[in-house]
């Protein structure tokens, strides 16, 4: 009797749990279904061509892929050293009294809505970046990285704002990973006469898998970030190496053009971009989870609320 009721409980709650699995599957299926027109018509040339011309019905998504990858990689290059520095400072170096407030403040960075980053970006950061760009000496401006008119709006602004937004994620997970490194690792290093830096380097080395996972988690966030980037990147579908050039990302083109997409092919092309964004972030996030789980099974599971509470209770 009890046994059968327990089965009822298991099936009942299991049905709700199944909803999560179904949603993920449904996202994949629906995106494929609704972008089929575009997939069929363009095939792989969609991802190789640079022309994005809704009027004549020609769609090539290369500029968006480029913009997404370029901005995310630049953002990671800026964010990773900072995020790791913060994680190391909080978990290894700072006085215990400062730890909680610092954790709280860095996590506030993650709580600020994307639209607020965007608003601040347009009206405060972009003018500052424009000033920075115009004050670069001419010989530097000759380099391909700094060519073009200094508009402020462009790749550099997008990368900076993405970096700020990614820092709390990478640093929070890195902190968890460092916490999972046995104390003995550091003690052994100290016993051998290591300096502080050398002991921390040993701990980092021990936790390297998880740290790489934390960096990839940040990468996944940067790839999908929409509003703030849309507002500062300049929205121009042109591939360029220049940090000053206005460019475009996959998420931004969906945000800007989705409601304007008049015909089915245009809509299909935008949804196909969404599909690829979904697949890429899925792969990046799954890999990062595997890496993080292998080090610190609980880290980064639910970033905001329980990270704090579970950590304090542990």
């Amino acid at each position: 009797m009890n046994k059968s009721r327990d089965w009822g409980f298991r099936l009942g709650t299991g049905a709700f749990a199944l909803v999560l699995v179904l949603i993920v599957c449904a996202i994949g299926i629906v995106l494929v279904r609704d972008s089929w027109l575009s997939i069929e018509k363009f095939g792989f040339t969609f991802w190789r061509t640079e022309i994005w011309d809704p009027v004549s019905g020609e769609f090539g998504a290369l500029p968006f892929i480029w913009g997404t990858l370029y901005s995310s990689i630049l953002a990671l290059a800026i964010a990773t050293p900072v995020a790791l520095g913060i994680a190391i400072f909080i978990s290894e170096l700072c006085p215990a009294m400062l730890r909680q407030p610092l954790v709280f403040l860095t996590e506030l960075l993650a709580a600020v809505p994307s639209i607020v980053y965007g608003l601040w970006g347009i009206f405060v950061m972009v003018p500052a970046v424009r000033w920075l760009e115009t004050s670069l000496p001419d010989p530097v401006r000759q380099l391909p990285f700094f060519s073009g008119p200094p508009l402020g709006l462009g790749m550099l602004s997008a990368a900076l704002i993405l970096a700020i937004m990614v820092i709390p994620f990478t640093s929070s997970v890195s902190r968890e990973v460092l916490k999972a490194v046995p104390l003995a690792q550091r003690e052994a290093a100290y016993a051998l006469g290591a300096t502080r830096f050398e002991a921390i380097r040993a701990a980092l080395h021990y936790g390297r898998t998880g740290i790489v996972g934390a960096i990839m988690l940040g990468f996944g966030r940067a790839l999908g970030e929409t509003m703030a980037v849309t507002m500062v990147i300049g929205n121009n579908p042109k591939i360029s190496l220049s940090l000053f050039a206005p460019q475009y990302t996959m998420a931004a083109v969906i945000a800007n053009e989705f409601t304007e997409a008049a015909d089915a092919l245009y809509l299909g092309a935008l949804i196909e971009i969404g599909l690829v964004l979904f697949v890429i972030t899925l792969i990046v996030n799954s890999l990062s989870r595997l890496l993080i789980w292998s080090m610190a099974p609980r880290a980064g599971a639910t970033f905001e609320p329980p990270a704090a509470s579970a950590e304090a209770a542990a």
Partner: protein
Amino acid sequence: MNALARRRLLSSLFVGFCAFTVLLALVPLAFILFFVITKGIGSISLGFFTHMPLPVGEPGGGMANAIVGSLMLTGLAAVMAVPIGVVAGVYMSEYAGSRFASLVRFAADTLNGVPSIVIGVFAYAVAVLPFKQFSALAGGFALGTMMIPIIARTTEELLLLVPGSVREGALALGATRARAVFSVVLPAALPGIVTGVVLALARVAGETAPLLFTAFNNRFFTTKLTQPISSLTVQVFTYAISPYEDWHHQAWAGALVLVTMVLGCSLLARLATRRLERMHGR
């Protein structure tokens, strides 16, 4: 300089660098909060909460419709996500070792990592296209989809923190598993779960991308679920990219309301968890 001195110098430089990175991250935070407060406060008045937006050129006006819209959208999201999320969390913690629980956990983390704009496209395909109508329901569906994994994982984590003896006590008294979970274990974790729900609400209330083509926007006041509805975030976006000075002021004011709400919730939640921990003697 001998080797030891060099190593010590390197070490000190490294410590200095780490401290510097903390400052580096706190500077943008301070700048953002500073600008949002100083630029937003000027346009905040009682009218901002009770009046409708005015056309360009007329000073004043508010975001009453957007504020009500945001509340409704997050309410709809909660109605959808809380039951599913909590019960799914119960399953994951009760059958933590099972293969299906691992699959669900993986699905939750995957869903959590799906870019919000993709959630918007999904909600458009499922809840807008078939009805040929942007609607509050579609917006609520998009936000709810984002909330489910957050609530499920929070519930799971918090249920796992409830001491095994509590559950065993209930089972020893002859309770069924369902009874033990819903009458004993879940209530023990309830304050934490409520905190988690509040945080999840605050997080989705700040979302813009999933609403752009689901709830869309509406210049008028409406509480109809089948109509497009305005929200604070989309309204701030519309105003921010407009060329009008008046509207920029309104955008900053909207951002201030958003930030106050989101940060207020985080702060409250943090205080609440601390209190809970003290109550449990940790």
